[in-house]
């Protein structure tokens, strides 16, 4: 009897340990994406090169509920991840600009460095400037780069932490595109 109890205890602890080892410690929960919450609204100034086409400030609510939106948080100091995904995002935006709106949120950065980054990659989708990173907190952001996918109804359906590659981005886009 006692021997069986010991075996059970060892098996339980072993099972718990095995289960714990299977979990990904880097997996970060996103409350927004899990509960499909409406994307938090924000109004932020656009970086100067985008003012002619998009105006002085960008209000997300003006664009919600029309097209799916890809919201990409980045910073010029985020090397190499942000540098890896910038060309991928730009290429995808050029392919899908009729169906999806891409918005870049420059986070906790200095304006001259942000401007150098956008000109280095020739980013043509609108870029807003959030030096404090206040919008990131509203989205429950952990660290740049992070990308949120908002569907046509204005709900956050997915969040990707880390650099995006082309295949992953296309997979997320298929989720929000009709």
């Amino acid at each position, binding site marked *: 009897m006692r021997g069986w109890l010991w075996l059970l205890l060892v098996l339980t602890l072993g099972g718990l340990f095995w289960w714990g080892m299977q979990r990904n410690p880097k997996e*970060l*929960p996103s*409350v*927004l994406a899990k509960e499909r919450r409406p994307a938090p609204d924000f109004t932020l100034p656009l970086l100067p090169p985008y003012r002619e086409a998009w105006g002085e400030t960008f209000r997300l609510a003006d664009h919600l509920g029309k097209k799916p939106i890809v919201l990409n948080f980045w910073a010029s100091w985020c090397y190499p991840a942000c540098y890896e995904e910038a060309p991928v995002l730009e290429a995808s935006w050029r392919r899908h600009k009729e169906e999806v709106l891409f918005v870049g949120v420059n*986070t*906790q950065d200095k304006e001259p460095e942000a401007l150098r980054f956008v000109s280095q990659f020739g980013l043509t989708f609108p870029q807003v400037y959030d030096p*404090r*990173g*206040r919008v*990131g*907190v*509203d*989205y*429950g*952001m*952990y*660290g740049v780069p992070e990308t949120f996918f908002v569907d046509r109804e204005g709900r956050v359906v997915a969040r990707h932490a880390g650099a995006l590659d082309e295949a992953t981005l296309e997979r997320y886009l298929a989720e929000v595109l009709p």
Partner: protein
Amino acid sequence: MRWFLFLLALSLPALAQEGPPPDLPPEVFQIARTLRCPVCQGESAAESNSGVAVEMRRIIAEMLKEGKTKEEIQAFFVDRYGEWILYEPPRRGTTLWVWLLPLLGLLLLGLGLFAYFRPKPLPKELLEEAERRLKEPPR
């Protein structure tokens, strides 16, 4: 006296760390200490100097100025990051086990130690033998 001085010398660096930086009120750090820094997960939002943690402290300071309570401020961050952001998991639901299991473990260990070290009665034959020898007249 010497011991007192020794302990004082040991505790001085800890005391020095307690003082908050001058730009934000100490209440801000008190609340930030209960929140996890999202980028540097081993640190609290009070200790970290990462951009997010600095912004979190600014938000806490602003909310305190608006008259929000500690609970309301914590709820604000839990709403955005989930309960993960709290340094101490809530004492209910699944995370209650995090609090209970160590106590349960200690209890089991105590029981085990007690059972192991409890004075055991001597075997019957031995007792009988002792009894018999006692009754024997000394040689």
